[in-house]
């Protein structure tokens, strides 16, 4: 494929993101919200959809949703209500989902993202609140419902508050989608309203992808991609889909409007169902709940309770610490990472860039290998600050510090303790070095005389001898100074 041909096309992506809220109780009943657990233990007549049961709105969930909507610069609706969305599925207790339809809590928002592609303003169509379903486990066959022997249902998750965030089709590459999801995740994490763990399903991303000729009036055929269980999968799935659609168009093939399933193992998408299966959800206002109107006072109270949001924090990092945009982006992928950096910078007190270098150049590599995030590592921010100070004080060399960090990372010990154990600490005590220097001068009279005569080049030989005798532990700078003072008079 030549560059010129592929340049004829452009990709359009809109994302639909579901986030489970971390409220104490479920959306419409008093059952607890938690991940996993013994099946069907966090259930009651309401979340099991038993005859006669009725929903009661969890106000905290409305507040959390409002936080997300406000953080995404949305308008908050003045008059809102819930609807019933009707469809049959065995993991849905009532065979309708209580959701929002034409009056979502938030609408017309924007999230600005930045990366290699520049800066993109992604519109937020809507932010609404609904309830999650239970979980089906299909036993036998391929693990999908169609060819399984039987299915098990676990309703622990049923009724968990779920926020749906729909973006405008303002995303034009897999990379932009990746950054959007990363930034949205960091934003919601900062708000403290969800665990946003994609691998556990507390954040789920679906994408609508289409490709069209540049400048074409309408969008291309829309394909919905599901089952992307990590940010990496979002990127891979969209890259695959973009390429598949472009190649089909270039080959003159027609694309089907369909839903496709991403396979993590193969990195490919495959057709799940075509548009003929489009559902009629028969939405109608939920008669078991009354319409609600978030008061302006409530909205303002929630707005003023918002913590510092990632965008503001990034600007502050650039301004206050003098960091580059690329470094800031890496430090602010999660609230915890950014908090960790700030704690380390505070403990260090000096030029924060030094701390950043250690985090990005060394610590991130170790974290990657271990497959963990910064907050889960054994090393505390204060300990990293301690390591940087040891290097500053010339107690250990930069090269030695790298191996000290590896040990700190593994054991959680302080930098000076590790340096001592490893016998890495440089001898900076001048009296201790002085006796070695005297010994070396005594043993190398000829060289010493040359130095005394002004042949400063020979001083390097003497420094080498001292270092050798001290098995490398003497601070070379200090040795140099001592030799000069003794031989130059």
């Amino acid at each position, binding site marked *: 494929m030549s560059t010129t041909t592929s340049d004829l096309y452009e990709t359009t992506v809109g994302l639909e993101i579901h986030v489970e809220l971390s409220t104490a109780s479920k959306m419409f009943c008093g059952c607890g919200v938690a991940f996993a657990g013994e099946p069907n233990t966090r259930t009651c*007549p309401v979340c*099991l*959809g*038993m*005859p*006669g*049961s*009725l*929903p*009661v*709105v969890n106000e905290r969930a409305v507040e959390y949703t409002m936080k997300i909507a406000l953080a995404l610069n949305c308008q908050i609706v003045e008059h809102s209500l819930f609807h*019933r969305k*009707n469809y*049959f599925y*065995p993991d849905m*207790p*009532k*065979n*309708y989902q209580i959701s929002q339809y034409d009056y979502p809590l938030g609408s017309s928002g924007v999230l600005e993202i930045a990366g290699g592609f520049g800066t993109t303003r992604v519109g937020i169509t809507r932010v609404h609140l609904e309830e999650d379903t239970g979980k089906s486990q299909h036993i036998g066959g391929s693990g999908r*419902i169609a060819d399984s022997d039987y*299915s098990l*249902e676990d309703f622990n998750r049923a009724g968990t508050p779920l926020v749906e965030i729909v973006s405008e089709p303002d995303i034009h590459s897999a990379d932009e989608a990746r950054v959007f999801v990363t930034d949205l995740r960091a934003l919601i994490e900062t708000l403290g309203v969800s665990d946003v763990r994609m691998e556990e399903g507390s954040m789920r991303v679906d994408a609508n992808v289409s490709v069209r000729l540049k400048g074409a009036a309408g969008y291309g055929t829309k394909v919905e991609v599901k089952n992307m269980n990590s940010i990496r999968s979002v990127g891979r799935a969209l890259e695959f889909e973009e390429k598949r659609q472009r190649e089909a168009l270039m080959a003159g093939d027609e694309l089907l409007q369909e839903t496709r399933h991403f396979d993590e193992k193969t990195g490919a998408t495959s057709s799940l169902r075509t548009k003929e299966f489009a559902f*009629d959800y*028969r*939405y*109608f206002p939920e*008669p*078991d*709940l*009354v319409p609600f109107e978030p008061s302006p006072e409530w909205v303002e109270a929630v707005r003023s309770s918002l913590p510092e949001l990632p965008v503001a924090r990034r600007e502050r990092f650039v301004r206050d610490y003098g960091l580059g945009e690329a470094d800031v982006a890496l430090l602010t992928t999660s609230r915890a990472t950014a908090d960790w950096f700030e704690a380390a910078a505070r403990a260090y007190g000096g030029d924060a860039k030094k701390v950043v270098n250690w985090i990005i150049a060394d610590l991130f590599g170790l974290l990657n290998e271990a497959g963990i995030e910064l907050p889960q590592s054994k090393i505390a921010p204060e300990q990293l600050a301690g390591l940087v100070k040891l290097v500053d004080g010339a107690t250990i060399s930069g090269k030695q510090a790298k191996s000290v960090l590896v040990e700190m990372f593994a054991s959680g010990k302080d930098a000076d303790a590790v340096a001592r154990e490893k016998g890495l600490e440089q001898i900076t005590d001048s009296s201790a070095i002085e006796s070695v220097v005297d010994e070396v001068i005594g043993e190398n009279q000829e060289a010493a005389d040359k130095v005394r005569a002004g042949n400063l080049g020979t001083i390097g030989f003497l420094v080498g001898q001292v270092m050798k005798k001290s098995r490398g532990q003497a601070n070379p700078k200090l040795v140099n100074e001592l030799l000069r003072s003794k031989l130059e008079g």
Partner: protein
Amino acid sequence: MVDTWTPAAELGHAMASGDASAEEITTAFIERGQAVEEGIHAYLAPTFERAVDEARAADDRRTRGEALSAVDGIPLAFKDVFVTKGVPSTSGSRILDGWVPPYDATVVARCSEAGLPMLGKLDMDEFAMGSSGENSGFGGARNPWDAERVPGGSSSGPAALVAAGGAPWAWGTDTGGSVRQPAALCGIVGVKPTYGLVSRYGMIAFASSLDQASPFARTVEDAAMLLQLACGHDPMDSTSIPDEVPDFLDGIDAGIEGMRIGVVKEFQGEGAQPGVRTRVDEAYKRLEKLGAKIEEISLPSFEYGISAYYLIAPAEASANLARYDGVRYGYRAPADDIVTMTSHTREDGFGDEVKRRIMLGTYALSAGYYDAYYGKALRVRSLIIRDLEKAYEKVDLIACPTSPTTAFKVGERTADPLAMYLSDIYTVPVNLAGNAGISVPCGLSPDDGLPVGLQLIAKALDERTMFRAAHAFERDFGWISSAEGRPPL
């Protein structure tokens, strides 16, 4: 020997004075119920042993001076639409055959807290859909005035049992007339309270925006007392009214001198049987004699009530009944896959009328039809509310027949659903508007010697005016306490 025609209020006095024990009273009703059961088939699940145990506990409490209420120990029965912990609750449907609820409806719990022993669960039209009791999945109750005739519906069992003296009072539900119409057809009192006055929690839903728990009794005072026991705000029902509930008995004796009662012009014409018109006209005259000012009012939107009702109620029912899929409780048809299982479960488990209404409602909510059907029905509903508001500027109460006919023969209308639907022509608008209504006996029709009911319709939350007028009428008429007011069974 306790006379089971005695009103509950008097039985309460008898217990207080030591003339009768709760056990004697309860046993008398059990024996009367057993004696008439062969003729009326009111019971689906009797709980006689439990009732006697509860009555004995009530006697112990009264001996210790710890009676829970003035009627502690006076038994009652429930339409099977109320869920009862540990006692099968079917809503008259085979699809719930065998289901034993793990919780009590709020109405059941509140009556239990007042010390009322539970005689059992009573027959009804399946999921409260019907006007004759014939749609029960388990047989169908009969009218104690004539076993060849229906008792009305959907609260067929409670109406038949209370009319036959097998219970002093009972709870039914009224969605479009399901308590007032059978009360009229059986010659007893039936009250549809203001929507939201009584909690719907634990009432198996038919049409959520219309369903209301509604008491049956032989006297107005008893009906008011039973309503008082269970009404008031319930945090488990978001549509329950938070206001404090007035004392319905306070001022019930005050008479109706000067009360303005409107007679609906549109209901004066051909619609009702001549014998029904005769008795209702006599009732208007009696009200006038008692000091009320009778004036004609116009409610032009009422003629569209049935049409709007048969779109709104089935629409809500189509979603409410989606949960009966064989997955979690009740009947499950044997099948090899989920789709076949669910469709066979619903095919076998639901009766014809339920299926008809699910299809009606599904159609009314479908894409492209919503505005023409459901949307238009909601607009009619608004018109009915507006017409009523205007009427209440001129009058305090509205009077009309409860049912256009007396009890019809079993099988007479089963082949003609529309004729059956028209049984509720005078009651349905009250549910659509959410107002309160009562049916009080006004004698036997000269045509066929069967009971006729007078309906009095009050403003929302103006039950006191309604009870005051009905009580004045009942006392002056004296029919219910005469031999003529008792069915020949």
